């Protein structure tokens, strides 16, 4: 072993994205390596710009103190969402490349099969683990404690560690653009294709460790959320007074706790196979790949409900708020959510009806799957009835919500079709399936999270998002989704398999072209979203809502200033019913000053998240490239940090009652000075975050 080998393991020059092109310049290799190098360059440039920008502004100290080490659940939530948005941008661009390839993919195209394989694998992996999960974790982080009247999560430092681990996983996927390759095994990583004997390179290892980091992070987040909801609700906030979003957060948290470990185990066992010559999922020596598939989907199906339930929660809040009306069938919706969460553990086999098990087994799981359709259908009707006899305002979150309802039922229909084993035998593994899950994930997860951003952004930053670009983005997402994925239903029924880099049937071509246009429209939607953010920041003074209640909200988070102080509530509120803030407004007694203020104890900053995240990244990177010394070193750092944390004595700090009083009274004075507005002025500069009494405001 040479020193270089010891230092760099199997990392060599050939990991550079342009290496192949230099060694073997053919037309195709040049094109592909140029694309790959461009992507790698973006990563490097992006990182440089961030570092340079922060240095130029001299903000390293601020970044460190106020963000990276801040245990404030609101800050952590925002950082999760930033990760999600960055990763969303990358994954959408990858989707556009895949769609472009298939739009010219009749007997060829411009991408190599290997490149295409990496694209669908990173796209899927990112969208699920590094877009969907951080996004919903961020939104829950931000909103849930405010909704239950808590000051923070139960375990703020653990929350930082979750963030660090997710960031490490995302960074690993990003680094794989610079030091190639990534896996081609799809987001499912089915063995034995991902075993060493079939895939000896670093790609699968990147995938294993990125996913493992993400699942660790989510398990910890799940524990944190569940404990918080159980233990930190304000007095009077009984379970059945919790806002629906918090209910979905609770169900999601429980699903995370039980649903994530199977994947951690599956990827762990796969790693044992690859690193230590175990034979869990190999074809020889007693291994059985069916165990991998089983474990993967024991995670995979709960996972799709982890993704979708928070979105259901967001939409429940949005429908009620923008219809100026109580949520229809609150208890029923809660029951339906619980039903879905429980049933989601009983259906995983529908992902492999074709693996040769008996008809009895298939039929049982098919029926179990259709059962989930019942509570889901009920929810849709409950949302419609929430709008019924209300006064519906089509603001941006509402456009997403209505788009969601109309499109989601179609996805539900294709879901029941896929749950029918005899029909699944025809459409399984085809683009029909791809159309189906995008039909759930885009209107569900993506629209849900974007609605959440539009809805809660003013709470988090103190100013509303600009409405016009928001509408454009929303409509373009809807249109883009329809163009990109309805053709895939047809292609699937025509027999086109998923994950095909090219095809020979000319009848596919018109449909892949339409889908390609759809992907471009989705890209335009992404651009509108970024423009919306930009314009909003630029015009922020025009849209300030310091009083904190821009939408005539119903739940507790709207009863605070925008943005809320780090301790959320000057005194922990007492809750007397559902829609706590609306109750106060109805009773004419919002914005009361507490009789007495007390010192508030808050968690102190901690570097644990950064340390564990950085060491986690180093360990994962080192494992991928066989740099054993670095693996050992990062393990030592992680264990050392955990031990050192035990000796830290300043884990809390105190905010004096006086300061709390001053801050609160300042806000109350500002609220007093704010003119309440009717809903018709919601989108104008007159909206400073205070609403006229509800009923009056909602009907002009």
């Amino acid at each position, binding site marked *: 072993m040479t020193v270089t080998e010891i230092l760099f393991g199997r990392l060599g020059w050939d990991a550079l994205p342009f290496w192949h092109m230099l060694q073997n310049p053919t037309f195709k290799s040049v094109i592909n390596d140029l694309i790959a190098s461009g992507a790698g360059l973006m990563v490097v440039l992006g990182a440089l710009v961030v570092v340079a920008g922060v240095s130029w502004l001299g903000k390293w100290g601020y970044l460190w103190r106020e963000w990276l080490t801040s245990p404030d659940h609101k800050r952590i939530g925002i950082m999760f969402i930033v990760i999600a948005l960055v990763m969303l941008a990358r994954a959408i661009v990858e989707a556009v490349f895949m769609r472009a390839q298939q739009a010219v993919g009749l007997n060829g195209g411009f991408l190599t*099969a290997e490149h295409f394989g990496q694209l669908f694998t990173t796209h899927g992996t990112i969208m699920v683990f590094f877009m969907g999960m951080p996004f919903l974790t961020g939104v829950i982080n931000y909103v849930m404690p405010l909704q239950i009247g808590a000051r923070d999560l139960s375990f703020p430092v653990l929350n930082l560690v979750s963030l660090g681990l997710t960031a490490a996983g995302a960074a690993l996927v990003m680094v794989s653009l610079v030091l190639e390759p990534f896996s081609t095994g799809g987001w499912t990583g089915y063995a034995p294709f991902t075993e060493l004997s079939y895939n000896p390179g670093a790609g699968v290892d990147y995938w294993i460790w990125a996913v493992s980091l993400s699942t660790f992070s989510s398990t910890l987040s799940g524990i944190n959320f569940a404990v918080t909801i159980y233990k930190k609700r304000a007095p009077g906030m009984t379970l059945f007074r919790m806002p629906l979003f918090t209910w979905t957060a609770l169900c999601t948290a429980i699903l995370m706790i039980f649903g994530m470990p199977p994947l951690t185990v599956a990827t762990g066992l796969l790693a044992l196979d690859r690193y230590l010559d175990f034979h869990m999922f190999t*074809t020889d020596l007693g291994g059985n790949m069916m165990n991998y598939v089983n474990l993967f989907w024991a995670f995979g199906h709960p996972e799709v409900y982890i993704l979708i339930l928070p979105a259901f929660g967001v939409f429940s809040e949005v429908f009620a708020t923008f219809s100026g009306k*109580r949520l229809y069938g609150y208890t029923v919706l809660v029951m339906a959510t619980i039903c879905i969460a429980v049933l989601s553990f009983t259906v995983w086999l529908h992902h492999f009806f074709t693996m040769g098990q008996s008809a009895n087994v298939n039929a049982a799981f098919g029926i179990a799957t259709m059962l989930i359709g019942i509570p889901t259908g009920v929810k849709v009707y409950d949302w419609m009835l929430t709008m019924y*006899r209300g006064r519906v305002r089509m603001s941006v979150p509402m456009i997403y919500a209505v788009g969601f309802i109309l499109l989601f039922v179609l996805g539900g229909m294709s879901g029941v079709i896929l749950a*029918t084993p005899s029909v699944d035998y025809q459409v399984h593994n085809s683009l029909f399936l791809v159309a189906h899950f995008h039909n759930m994930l885009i209107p569900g997860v993506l629209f849900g999270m974007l609605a959440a951003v539009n809805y809660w952004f003013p709470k988090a930053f103190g100013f509303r998002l600009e409405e016009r670009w928001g509408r454009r983005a929303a409509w373009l997402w809807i249109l883009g989704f329809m163009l990109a994925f309805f053709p895939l239903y047809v292609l699937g029924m025509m027999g086109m398999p998923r*994950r095909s880099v090219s095809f020979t049937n000319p009848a596919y071509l018109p449909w892949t072209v339409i889908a390609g246009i759809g992907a471009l429209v989705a890209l335009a939607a992404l651009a509108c979203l970024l423009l919306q953010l930009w314009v909003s920041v630029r015009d922020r003074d025009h849209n300030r809502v310091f009083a904190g209640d821009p939408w005539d909200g119903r739940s507790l988070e709207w009863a605070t200033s925008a943005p809320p102080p780090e301790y959320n509530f000057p005194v922990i509120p007492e809750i007397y019913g559902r829609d706590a803030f609306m109750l106060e407004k109805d009773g004419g007694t919002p914005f009361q000053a507490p009789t007495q203020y007390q010192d508030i104890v808050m968690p102190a900053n901690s570097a644990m998240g950064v340390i564990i995240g950085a060491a986690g990244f180093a360990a994962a990177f080192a494992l991928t490239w066989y740099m054993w010394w670095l693996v050992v070193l990062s393990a030592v750092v992680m264990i050392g940090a955990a031990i050192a944390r035990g000796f830290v004595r300043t884990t809390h700090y105190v905010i004096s009652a006086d300061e709390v009083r001053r801050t609160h009274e300042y806000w109350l004075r500002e609220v007093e000075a704010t003119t309440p507005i009717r809903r018709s002025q919601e989108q104008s500069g007159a909206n400073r975050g205070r609403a006229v009494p509800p009923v009056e405001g909602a009907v002009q």
Partner: protein
Amino acid sequence: MTAVSQQQKHFPALSALGACLLPATLSGCSSAPGFLDPQGPIARAQLGHFWFVVAMLAIVILPVLVLTPLILWRYRYGTSRAAYRPKWELTLWLDILIWGIPILIVVILSVVLWRQTHQLDPYRPLHSDQPPLEIQVVGYDWKWLFIYPEQHIATLGQLIVPVGRPVAFDLTSATVLQTFFIPALGSQIDVMNRMQTTLHLLADREGEFEGRNMQYNGDGFHEQRFTARAVNAQDFARFVADTRHEGIPLDQHNYRILARKGSTLEAAKALGESVTLPDDPLVRFSAVPDGLFDAIMRDAPLDWSELSPTTGGSATSAPATPHDTGGETSNPSASAASTTITTQGESAS
């Protein structure tokens, strides 16, 4: 009469509707045989079931699609004509309705699902007055080998089956997970190394249908296609006879070439076949040894001296190799020891 062909009677109108509507509006009437233009009883029943599910679900979905825009309009902000009930949150009969109807639909769908899943179970032999043709399928990276054990022939690139006669497939993979699928005829089924799956299909019309692997397995995945040809009995007999005479022997040398990574086309060229239609290569093998499939399935190192070469002769004259029945049970360690090959004795055909 096959068992499944009765199935289509359950939804004749729907099948007809689907058959005309979707291909006509979406892909033109010239759509290739496939799910939308089935060529066998299984696929036809599946299409019927598909439209049945769609129709049932339309009962709950159409109201959403129609009513949501209406509600949005009628109860828009600023209207003064419609009722406003900000505190209304439950009406019992409405709730019974929105739970009851989906439950009812799911019950109906479940009953049908249970019956159809059993009736269309790929493992279920098709009843017919003709004995099924046995075909053994092996998936490679990235091609399919079709072994006709009774005829001692095999093909690559094309699967030739007699029309009207059930085909019983035994399937395995010589490599990673793959999925064998002929959409025009019916179900897809996974193939896995060291495991055998089973599939029963029947073509009731002559023609050429696309077949392929549906499960991604690497760079050549998109090329892992084949053509399934349903031909009449005479043509099938001629194909068997021709293959016996003209096919290249599937011996150790040729098997090595065949098992290499690569597409069907590449294998065909390497095997010295002059390929005329690049899209549709056909390689025919004669003298396929007994027990080849089982040996591949168990991932046993193929010991060609023990595999009995059956040259051209008639199927019935094929000698059964002495075999070790103990190897019948899949014993993973058997592969480590010497090759154990089981031959199925010739069945009466």
